[in-house]
């Protein structure tokens, strides 16, 4: 057993490269290429600011992903808590000294780009809880202490992010944390009880929402109540997607985006532009690509010998899934508008950084899937 361990520890670089998951890697590359082209389209068919920056970020973060992958999964396991704490510290820093923009304070300047720590927290919380449940004895999963600790781990960053304010990201952080709770084996009835409690207290929660957030919910329920104001985004988004039809209007021919009818087309509404230009076929194709990625991550999780890797992969696959679902539901008018980017596709450095680190750890899990962590 010891030998086996050692063998894995001393895996060569060549073997590491050989052991990379190429289905996942190719899918991510494909997605990146698509995202550059879509970004090129949002710039009106020219290589402008967004296209350039998006490409540069991909060029930096993709190697970073490989770099992350080449660290043993054990290394990530060991540093999980520390990473979580560092990100918490960053959140604290941001809440005091962060850069303010359009009414919220989420960013910090790190010389070469503007970092949004809450995006990193999406990964950090999965790592932290995966390690916690990896170490927790199955008997203690439902103990009051462990549940309290876990809830605190989730609530602390969530509260920081809500107060930025950034409802979208905080929901995604909370959901990423809760999924590990679920996977870790917390009793189903707890989930059911808390869900019922949540439903009952929903009106109460809504009363705490900021006016613009309430407006978003009202707008979601009836976008036509203010078609040029609050409902404008969702109406224009639906028009863009709906007018795409079966095979879309063609690359660079999306009139809705080209003529500036689409708001936030680089970030949260990137799928709208994609869907307008590539239609139903393209949209389903993109979903299939995402599904492949999720499936590959789940597969890597299921072959991992350590529960840390397994929990991380499953948790991260779910997180990716949630990001996609929340984003698509939003642009399709199935959910109220909450700011949430589409992984890789959306313009935004922190989101891409976090996503790539996530993929990197998943790849590390693949390379070291036989690694047992004590």
């Amino acid at each position, binding site marked *: 057993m010891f030998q086996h361990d050692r063998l894995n520890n001393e895996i060569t670089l060549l073997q590491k490269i050989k052991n990379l998951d190429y289905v996942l890697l190719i899918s991510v590359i494909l997605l990146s290429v698509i995202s550059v082209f879509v970004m090129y389209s949002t710039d009106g068919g020219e290589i402008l600011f967004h296209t350039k920056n998006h490409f540069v970020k991909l060029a930096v973060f993709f190697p970073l992903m490989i770099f992350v992958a080449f660290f043993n999964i054990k290394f990530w396991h060991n540093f999980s808590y520390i990473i979580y704490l560092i990100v918490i510290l960053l959140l604290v820093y941001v809440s005091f000294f962060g850069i303010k923009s359009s009414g919220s304070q989420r960013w910090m300047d790190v010389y070469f780009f503007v970092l949004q720590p809450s995006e990193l927290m999406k990964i950090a919380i999965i790592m932290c809880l995966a390690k916690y449940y990896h170490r927790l004895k199955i*008997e203690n999963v439902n103990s009051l202490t462990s549940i309290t600790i876990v809830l605190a781990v989730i609530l602390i960053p969530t509260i920081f992010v809500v107060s930025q304010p950034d409802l979208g990201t905080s929901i995604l952080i909370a959901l990423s944390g809760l*999924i590990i709770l679920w*996977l870790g084996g917390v009793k189903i009835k707890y989930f059911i009880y808390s869900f019922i409690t949540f439903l009952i207290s929903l009106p109460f929660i809504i009363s705490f929402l900021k006016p613009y957030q309430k407006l978003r919910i009202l707008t979601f329920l009836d976008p036509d109540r203010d078609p040029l104001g609050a409902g404008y985004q969702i109406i224009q988004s639906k028009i863009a*997607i709906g007018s795409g039809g079966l095979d879309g209007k063609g690359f660079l021919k999306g*009139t809705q985006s080209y*003529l*500036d009818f689409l708001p936030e087309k680089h970030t949260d509404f990137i799928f709208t532009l994609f869907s307008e230009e590539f239609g*139903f076929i393209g*949209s389903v194709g993109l979903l299939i690509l995402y599904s492949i990625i999720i499936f590959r991550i789940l597969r890597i999780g299921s072959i991992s010998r350590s529960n840390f890797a397994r929990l991380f992969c499953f948790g991260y696959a779910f997180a990716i899934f949630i990001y996609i679902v929340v984003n698509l*539901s939003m642009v399709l008018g199935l959910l109220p508008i909450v700011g949430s980017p589409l992984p890789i596709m959306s313009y935004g450095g922190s989101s891409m950084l976090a996503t790539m680190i996530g993929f990197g750890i998943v790849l590390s899990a693949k390379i070291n899937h036989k690694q047992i962590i004590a």
Partner: protein
Amino acid sequence: MIKSNSGIRKTDVINRRMFIIGAAKVVVFAAIVARLFSLQINENKKYLTLSDKNRIREWKLPPTRGNIVDYFGNVIAGNLKVYQLHIIPEQVENFNYLLVRLKNLLNLSDKKITRINKLKAELKPWDSIIVSENLSWSQFVKINNYLYDLVGVKPVMTISRNYPFNDVYTHVLGYVSQPNEQEILDNQIIQERFVPGMKIGKLGLEKRLENHLIGTNAIQRYEVNAYGKRINQLEHQKGQQGSKIRLTVDTEIQKACGKLLNGKAGSISVMDIFTGDIIAMYSSPSYNPNLFLFGISQDEWQLIRNNPLKPLINKTISGLYSPGSTIKPIVALSALENNVIDTKFKVKCTGKMELYGQTFHCWKEKGHGWVSMKNAMKQSCDTYFYEVARLLGVDRLNITAQKFGLGKKVLGEYFDTEKKGLFPNTKWKKNNLGKGWVLGETLITGIGQGYIQSTPLQLCMMTAQIANGGYSIKPKIIVDSNPISYEDAKQSMESGFLFDSESEELLDKRLFKDKKNIKIVQEAMFSSTNERFGTSYKSRIDDPKYQFAGKTGTAQVKRISKRERELDLELEQIPYKDRDHALYVAYGPYVNPRYALSIIVEHGGSGSKAAAPIAKKLFKLIIDRHELRNKQSNFERITI
């Protein structure tokens, strides 16, 4: 062992829970695909339409009005290229500098500058401001020369209404100008096609035929962005020019009428006695309708408005005059028809007639002696017609006069300014003035004075219907889709009936009981012009080709006092406003007559001196143009 056991158990839990989530994921993705399907496949059409509505905006351009042509196809209301100057504010670097430059180049007034600034504040920066609607060629060239320095200025060529004959047709055509709010609201078609800068008919046929003339908008489709700015021109849908309308009028004759009445207030109407075609219809003085196209200046407007000869009134149809002696053919005809007189009936004229202590004067102080109908007409003896009217009575006279079109609108539907005039009878007076009819009033009605009022066009039609043998005609100024030739019209008239295409029945066109009576009146009118002592003998034309028959009239505008009668002043000695109106009605050629006319010269003095000589000059032209007109009768047929 325990550790490894629990490790295995934990893995199982994780895997089991993962499967539950995995199943949920499939369901959620399926739901998203379903939503995509419903938006992109099921509702694709709806959203495509919405997307096009978003991005495509239409700009209507002013429609091009249809041309109006005369009988010979000469354009009398057409369209002309004009040069305009537009500013597109968003392209201008320094607006104030530009305005200063333009002010110097085009001599713009300060008021105009203020207006441009106001427009700039109201319009979107990419909407063009029309600085000048009608640049002269030299201004246009000047602007083009300095264009390098006038960033944001756009010289534009566009189309505007134009009246090539200036004032010749003003009262027939009217003019076009910018519509006011009420005019837009009142007319559905204008409302639909209105664009700023568009002109609509304000008067005359331009107004009456607006819906035919207006044309359809050319439409330019542009792709616009979310802020409404034009990005691309997509397509240009050509508008259709309004219908071409052909009138019955003859520009040469119309122009001649204008010349003959130059400097005078009055009217000339010329009519085809069989078809009812109006050959000319001129009201003097006229004014230039082109002045109204780009907004008439205050000075020019005041000049027209304050002209004592009243150019704004279309005297032909809106001017009301006592017909004076021109009514006498109708009085004679009525008396003949009612067997009150015959050709042998004679009255002794002593220069005046006493009735119930009131004296009614003949124009000839010494009297005409014993006169028959023919002589009375020839010399326009008032005493004879006092007596005939007395015997006839006003009610019977009224019936004949009404038949011949007096007291009724002639063109009715075409000009809303047309007046119907008045031919009184006993009932009318009772109803309108509340008093009984007095016999003395019958007497003065018999010489076309008193309550009686007629328009020049009515007198023309009256004459035409005597000239054509006493058949009813329907005057018209627009050539209809199926114009009847004069031969056909004449033939069917002589049979007494005419098939009316509107009511689809044979209409009795006869206005007489005995055809012979019309002939008697025609002969009397002939003698008045062509026999010695006839009132218009001096204006006769002996050549049978041009020979015409007519009746003069002199309408008093105020009662002549005894003193004035004794003074017998020359025309020049009487103040303009008090001078008599001179009238003349005539038709010709005497053998096989074709045309009738009526002439009125306001305050011109006697009909024989002021009006009849005009007829002499005009008839030559009218007859000379007859053959040309006849050849033209099968000219293209235009439907309106």
